[in-house]
């Protein structure tokens, strides 16, 4: 009898590991940029190409930097979360519209609401390379000194916001 139970025992052990594995994220690659100064950029604004957004203007405040695109499905999931966050006024959100076209991006913001103080346009994805963008969306928390404190790969969910981003932002703001 006992030897016939062996396969079941082996299987249950494997299941135990799989269950733990589910709570780990293989994509949670520690970003080499965390703890380093955010790469500098100066890009035209989405709403007005005459004006530019630059990392220099942000020094002295804690801000979220969100990479998004109108062609990105996961951004649709994330968007309401960002809109709510911007209404709460907890932290300023700046966007970077990534490899997109101006009319489509603007139409997207008109339809879904605009959570951004302003969005920069990175049409050819050059700044994206500096930031090591794996995919869209990605979100960075940048502190008063312009250092990246956190990087979220994939959509920001209510959960991530509540458990990770907002506590971090509060701590950074009081520093």
């Amino acid at each position, binding site marked *: 009898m006992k030897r016939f139970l062996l396969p*079941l025992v082996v299987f249950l052990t494997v*299941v135990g*590991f*799989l269950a733990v*594995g589910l709570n780990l994220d*293989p994509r949670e690659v520690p970003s080499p940029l965390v703890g380093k100064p955010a790469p500098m950029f100066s890009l035209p604004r989405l709403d007005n190409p005459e004006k530019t957004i630059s990392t220099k203007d942000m020094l002295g405040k804690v801000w979220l930097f969100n990479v998004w695109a109108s062609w990105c*499905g996961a951004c649709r999931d994330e968007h309401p979360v960002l809109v709510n966050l911007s209404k709460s006024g907890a932290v300023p959100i700046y966007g970077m519209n990534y490899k997109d076209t101006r009319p*489509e991006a603007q139409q997207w913001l008109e339809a879904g609401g605009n959570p951004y103080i302003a969005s920069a346009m990175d049409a050819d994805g050059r700044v994206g390379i500096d930031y090591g963008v794996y995919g869209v969306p990605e979100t960075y928390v940048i502190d008063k000194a312009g250092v990246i404190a956190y990087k979220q790969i994939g959509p920001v969910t209510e959960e991530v916001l509540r458990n990770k981003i907002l506590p971090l932002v509060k701590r950074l703001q009081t520093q």
Partner: protein
Amino acid sequence: MIPEIGHFALILALLVAFIQGSFPLIGAARGNTVWMGLARPAARAQFFLISVAFICLAYAFATMDYSVTYVASNSNSKLPLQYRIAAVWGGHEGSLLLWAMILSIWTVAVSFFSKHLPDAMRARILGVMGLISIGFLLFMLTVSNPFERLIPAAMDGRDLNPLLQDPGMVFHPPMLYMGYVGFSVAFAFAIAALLGGELDAAWARWSRPWTTMAWVFLTTGIMAGSNWAYYELGWGGWWFWDAVENASFMPWLVGTALIHSLAVTEKRGSFKAWTVLLAICAFSLSLLGTFLVRSGVLTSVHAFATDPRRGLFILVFLVIVIGGSLALFAWRAPTVGRGGKFDVVSRESFLLANNVLLAVAAISVLFGTLYPLFLDALGLGKISVGPPYFDTVFAPLMAPALFLMGIGPIARWKQAALPELAKRLRWAFGVSIATAIVLPLLLGHWTPMIGLGLFLAFWVFGTSVSLIYQRLRGSGQSLMTRIKSPSRSWWGMVIAHLGIAVFTLGVTVVKGFESEIAVRMQPGDVAHLAGFDFTFEGVTEIEGPNYSASRGQIRITKNGVERTVLAPEKRVYTVQNMPMTEAGISPSFIHDLYASLGEPLDSGAWSVRIYHKPMVEWIWVGCLMMAFGGLLALSDRRYRLKNRSKTVVQGNDAEVSA
């Protein structure tokens, strides 16, 4: 409207699956024939409903309905029609629909080709398959609905992953799924036999053709995937030990063991518990593979966007299906008799040894695949084991397996005599040793691995040839009569084994003698490799339907005589802005000449990689021979007769295939 019909058909299919998974099983336990009789109509209704859903999704792709989220994220208006259709299984939700579709194809096939089975057995088999179907349909309807709407609709789709835009995408996934979902039939037979307490030779005889069929599909599917990777990834590899490849390879290893073990159970009544366990494991590994690919616990080139709820769902499903069947096994298997006795030197022993080696190989692949996860779960950091681990572990397991493979078919059942075996095998042994030593020296260099590989390839080849010779040798009859005298399943076995020889030869030669160079080439430059001259004649820009490409032209000459022109491409797919490499390959039985474009450099120069791959095509030819051997075994006379009459026809015991 059409997507809603598809969605609704899935819901109805789930309801039918509940009926199929409950009444026939209860009916079989209570002897209620009416309830058992529900199995067949339910299986057919389910097939119809899932087909409707599948067609609806294909229609949404064909008509570019970007109000369906799944279509919008896996298709694009510029994508050619054949890839829009193949995009049905290009993402997570659609692959699950394909899974369910193929499961229902197998189920409906069982419902048609099971007239010779006792009612209770058939009801149990279809009932078990219904239960599996419930799992997949529920999964789709709760967390992976392919028909979910996107409001407002997207203006255009995000396009199918360019890696998947290849003819391989059209038939590789369906083939592969036919294979590993096909093991659900052997699984259902095993569970039905455990439930009914009828683990006997008849059970083994009924499961054999289904198992072989699934194995043929799986072999072809893996071969197609390997071939696809070879020309699509652009660096000439044909197997990467990627988690997803492993997910299809583990069921193949266990399935191969299962085919052989079923033969013993049918012919000799032995190995019953072991055979049942293999049948459960083959399908469990298919499910586990699905879990690994779909849950996102492992990253790989095949990984799709993931959602933790999905992983949890599949994990619970795994526990119910695999845990439940292993518990059933632990409960029922001890009552199974032991079957015929056999000597230490006998065909049974050789087959058992091979079975154990294949199973251990599958376990070591499983271990290597899950090892990174184990370490991560124990908090020891993120690492991955790659080809070094698998190559080290795999070769020592396969070498004795191949050696035994040569002896098995020649040995007698029950009891064989070593001196007689040695006498019958001495020629094959001598020839393969001689080849292993001489051939590499003729080709240039000798290493222990090349020697071992060639020895094994020629050993399998030599023993198969001597088997054929001993079988066909003889008296007055014409050669044709003598070829027809052994059964088709015997010939199937021999051809599949020769396929292994061809495969092993290909792997050994390509690993031992391939060469490559990476060079910077300007138009007019000439590179030299393996006695060929490769002239780079520059790059032209071309426009595809949904990509733009730089197409290189490389003229190959040998001693001034032109051989062929290669046209490797570097494509950029416009929607996802993703660069892809299309290798230029000139294949032949002797060698492949393979070139791929790297990056453009200054002043019209490109980095170019050129490979010389001797006998690489033999790898896939070997796989096709194995699959063909399986098909031949399926066309055996006894299976055809069985379908026509209800009387069970005994296979000729002298002509067993193993």
